[in-house]
């Protein structure tokens, strides 16, 4: 759901900016939209947007918890008698 949220916000944001650019530059909607998309000189924005989606996916699928389970470190205060291993 988070990825969907981010996608919707992305599209809405770009639409808003395109609308404003139409007003400012008085050009038709499509030429403005093409200039607005992260083409040169703002190519770096593509990486940022991809980064945003990666983080969104990371949070969406709770990767950190999965990673913790996979290589969860043997925390020092385990061990000893077989008490109920309630993690503090």
């Amino acid at each position: 759901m988070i990825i969907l949220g981010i996608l919707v916000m992305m599209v809405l944001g770009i639409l808003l900016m395109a609308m404003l650019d139409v007003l400012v530059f008085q050009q038709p909607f499509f030429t403005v939209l093409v200039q607005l998309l992260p083409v040169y000189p703002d190519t770096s924005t593509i990486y940022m947007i991809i980064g945003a989606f990666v983080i969104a996916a990371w949070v969406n699928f709770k990767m950190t918890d999965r990673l913790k389970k996979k290589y969860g470190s043997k925390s020092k205060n385990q061990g000893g008698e077989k008490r109920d291993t309630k993690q503090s």
Partner: protein
Amino acid sequence: MTLSKVNTVDTFTLQLVFLLSTSIIFGTPSVVPDSWLVGIVAFFPACLLIVIYSTMLALQEDRGLYPMLEKAWGKVIGKGFVLIYSTYFLYIAARNIRDMIELIMSTLLRMTPVPLLTTMFVLLIAYTVLGGLHAIARFASLILWLILFMLLTLAILLMFSSSIILEQMLPFLSKGMWPVVKSAFSFSIWFPYGEIIVFLVFQPQLGGAKGFRKITLYAFLSTCIILSLTDLIQIWTLGLEDKKYSVFALLDAARLINIANIITRMDAIIALIIIFGTLLKCTVFLLACTEGVARVFNREAKDFAFPLAVVAGAFSILVTRNSAEHVTEGLKYVIYTLHIPLQLLVPLLTLLLIRIRYRKGATT
């Protein structure tokens, strides 16, 4: 985490720093010679905004802006409006980041790639957003001391380096009162004061309608005083005519400080203080945006913090190609297409709708 009230003094500082931070960089747009009057004149229509917002709150037992939209416009349109408001907040946050980056690139750094600066700043904002409103309010009180201290030292040092000449403000109202009032109504009411609508989103935590009215009034009053004082300092040092030509007026005023060639070159410190201010302002906007998106996609607001912040960073690079477009867009078009409808018309309509819809039935 129980939703407890942020105490009143913290809310006041939060709103004050929120209003002050970006408007300090540019000051009121110097379309009119006596720009310091514009700030004062803009105060009175701004109170009208407070009245609208507080009546909206009073009607709905202090629930936030988003539930009110849904209640007034029904489920689907309400959600649409929530999304529109979230994009509006995201857009303004992107513009603020762009302002700050422009300032940094023209005072501190030169060749460093802008995306790197924006990403670092944006990650910091996301980290602050995770902290929740209480932490941001306390952070605001910390920054308020910094900003006030900076303004005070600026004024005193300018006086000592004898570059404050009171005569320079003098052809007072040379073009008469009307341009001042017109510019107050067309620019200043929306730019610093209108953005207070963001605080409607966190109302349950910020002390309901009565609290909102009282605190925001004090915040508006002190912002108006501080802003007009800063404008006055700029006019006294740079002169009425010269102020039009400087992109960052406060910065140029700070460059004139020169006491015996030792205490000089203070302009970089002004730039640093403005980073703190912008950080806070963008955090509040992003908090409101994450709240809205979380409400629509019913997920935890905290999950949206980092992705949305990076999206805001990407937008801040895309939003304008050069500073001329940035300024014209900001002054003319954004006000008619975004500020006026979303800060005035939509709240008014929601108010009317709630009053009609719930006049007959019991106020649910």
